Structures are given as C-alpha cells and as structure tokens.
C-alpha cells in the first residue's frame, strides 16, 4: 500500500473506467503522495461515457441533464476549475501532479505537443487559454487544482471519441433560461487525432506518452510505470467517491442562479440557491403548478421543462 504513495517521477495508469472512481483516485493520490520537489507524477486514465463539469459550473447550463439520465451517461463535477467535457474510451485523460511550486501548465502541454507532433507528424499548437488545437479544432482541454502542498493539472486528449455523442450531450436545452455567475464553458469545434491520422490509437498513444514522459523527467528506468486498480484502494478513496457521486455535490454545489421561462407575455423566474428553490415569481396563473419553495431544483427539473413546452393558458 505504501509503495503507491512514494514520490518521484512516476507514471500510474488506472484500470478503472468509472469517472467517480478515477476522480476520487486522483484526489487521493494528490493529497497523500509524498511529493518531491522537481519531480512529476503522471496519471493516465479514461472513462466510459460521461460528462464532467468544472467545480463551479451549472450542469443544466452545460449539458442535457435529462438526456444523460435517460442514456445512463454519468454526470460528474470535478474538483478542478474550467469547462465541461464529454469523455468516452476514445478520450485519454492525463494528470500531472507536482508540488505547488513546480506547477506549470505550459511546460506540461509543451511536452505533450512536442511528443505528439514528433511521433505522429502533426501540427498541434497551444493557445493562451491552455488548450491544444489542431488547425482550428480543439483536441485538448485543461483544468487545474492548486492546494497548499500540491497542484495538479489535468487535461483531455481526443483520440477517437464519439463526437456525435459529444455534441448531443453538451447541448443544453436550458442554456438560454439560466442567468448566473457560474463559470461558463467556452465552446470550440473539436476533432479526434485519429481523424487526421488514422494510425493514431489509444494504445499507441499511451505507450508513446509513457516513454516520452520518463525521458522528459530524466528517468533512466523505462519500466517505472504501474497499472493501478482502484478497487484495491476502495477504503482509502471511498469518501471522495461518495462525495463525487452525491446529489449534494453534483447539484447543490451549483452557484446561485435564476431560471427564467418566457411564455408569451408571461415571465416566470425561479431563484435557486445551493440547488434549492428559494423564490418563484410569476407563476400564479399556472393552474397545474406544482412548484414551490424548498424543492430541490434537480428533482423538479423535468416539470420545469414541461412548463416550457406546455400551453400555460390551460
């Protein structure tokens, strides 16, 4: 058990494809590893289909929450900032974990870009938002979390993900109804690396990045990488896992917002704080109205959607 927490330049590859487990594992490692100055830990992971929102985002503004539920696509809120992304097995997640002082997003991305450009003959470049683009298409999104003793920078890499699903899940029917100060995603057109070069696969990329990472960090031992089965650390990560799966964290962790529905001349305004409806204006004329203060917004979301489509004069 202790071996997994040693510091130094290392690579760990998660065997899990569950987004909550992987996010919990990432946080557990970040908080418990004995980080050493000037060393980096690379965690490689991927998830079965899911949507991941940033720490201070509104899931309803960023994705089609009903569609996700109907199609058993997990919805997760991560601990780092940034925007919303869709993950599936064709998307590789990378986390670079260091001491707080050694945190450097640009260096991390430079390493990835150089490695991929060289191996696959591509022309990737880094934007000032710390995204990686191929021509005008985004292939990587970054986010970070900085704590007292450690910092991590994690980013996605679209290798051969299902872009149809990506677009469908990230299309929010509520986006124009929500007014809030939550962090908004900055949307871009995306592309899979394999669309540009069909020889690029997940397995090849994994192998390539492991080798390149160890070389970058002057590790002579090329087999200094381990597969990690998070099930073996169930006890250690279960608290984080529970938090990540909880409705409280997912929905009630949303910054305050007002949900506005305009039907003809009528406007209904629903104020939501900590995921709970605290005020409703303009709904007196709705006969079939079941909304009231104190309800959890996410529990009545479907009814609210119906209000948008039903004829109010019934």
């Amino acid at each position, binding site marked *: 058990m202790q071996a997994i927490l040693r510091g130094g330049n290392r690579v760990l590859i998660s065997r899990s494809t569950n987004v909550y487990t992987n996010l919990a594992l990432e946080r557990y490692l970040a908080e418990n590893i004995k980080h050493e100055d000037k060393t980096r830990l690379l965690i490689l992971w991927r998830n079965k289909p899911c949507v991941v929102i940033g720490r201070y985002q509104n899931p309803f503004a960023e994705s089609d929450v009903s569609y996700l539920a109907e199609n058993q696509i997990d919805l997760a809120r991560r601990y*780092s900032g940034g925007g919303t992304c869709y993950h599936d097995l064709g998307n590789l997640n990378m986390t670079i974990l260091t001491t707080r002082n050694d945190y450097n997003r640009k260096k991390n991305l430079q390493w990835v870009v150089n490695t991929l450009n060289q191996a696959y003959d591509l022309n990737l470049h880094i934007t000032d938002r710390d995204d990686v683009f191929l021509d005008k298409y985004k292939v990587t999104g970054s986010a*970070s*979390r900085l704590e007292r003793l450690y910092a991590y920078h994690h980013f996605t890499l679209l290798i051969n993900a299902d872009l149809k699903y990506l677009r469908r899940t990230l299309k929010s029917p509520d986006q124009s109804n929500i007014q809030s100060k939550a962090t908004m995603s900055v949307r871009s057109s995306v592309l899979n690396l394999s669309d540009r070069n069909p020889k690029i696969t997940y397995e090849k990329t994994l192998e390539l990045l492991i080798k390149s990472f160890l070389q970058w960090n002057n590790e002579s031992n090329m087999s200094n990488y381990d597969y990690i089965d998070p099930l073996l650390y169930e006890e250690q990560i279960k608290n984080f896992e529970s938090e990540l799966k909880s409705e409280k964290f997912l929905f009630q962790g949303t910054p305050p917002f007002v949900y506005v529905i305009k039907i003809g001349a009528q406007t209904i305004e629903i104020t939501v704080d900590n995921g709970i409806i605290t005020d409703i204006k303009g709904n007196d004329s709705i006969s079939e109205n079941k909304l009231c203060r104190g309800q959890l917004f996410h529990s009545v979301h479907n009814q609210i959607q119906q209000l948008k489509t039903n004829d109010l004069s019934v």
Partner: protein
Amino acid sequence: MCQERYFTKKHEWIQLLDANKKSIEVRVGISDHAQRALGDVVYCELPSVGAKFKRDDTFATLESVKAVSDCYMPIDGEISDVNEKLKSEADLINKSPYENGWLIQAFINDKEKKNISSTLMTEKQYKQFLETNKEAGDH
C-alpha cells in the same frame, strides 16, 4: 483607521480592524502577488458567517483561468462577515486585492492577536520573502 497588514507564506494578508467593540476583529484577503499569479478571478466561494476555522484551514476557494485554488486562514478565527460584492464581482480581488477585494472578516481572541505579529511577516518582510523566492530555474 486600519492597522498595518501582516502576510503569510501562502500570500494571504491579515489586518486588525479598529476595536470599538468588545471583540477583536480582523480582515483577510490575498496579496497583489497572489492575484497576479492567479489571473482573472471568475468565481469566489466564501464561507458562512459563524463558521470557525483553525490556522491553515481552507476558508475560501477561488477559480481563475480554469484553476481552482484554496485560501488558507492565517490564524484561528470565527467568520464575522464576508465580502458580498465578490458574489457578482469576483474580479474585485484582482482590481483591488487590499481594499475592495477583501475576502472575509473574523473574530479572533487575544492569543491569536499576539500570534499575528509573532508568527507572520510584516509588509517589508513579505517583500523580501518574494524577492528571495522568485521562480527558480528549469527542470
């Protein structure tokens, strides 16, 4: 009239507010160095009034340029007020880190008040600290 500021190694500042009341109250924020390192703050999560924290506990979390960072209590205290303006104008932290961009106010006890000057850095010491800790070389 406010008193001088003291600084932590994690770039928070603390300032004693004038004691007209029975209790000792302080104001806490982050330094100009910290706000520049963060970049534009887009969201600020503040604690509730009444919440109690120990020194080094996370009392607030900021999001800037896709990075979420915690702010740590310089000393033990109980939250007496939070800067409500930050809810709609989180970037006040960047524009005015020492004045309008303050984060919280807290009640502290006498022992903690003494701890401020004995365990934290004066503005001058903080400036020196920044000088000697400038980003070291490459790796």
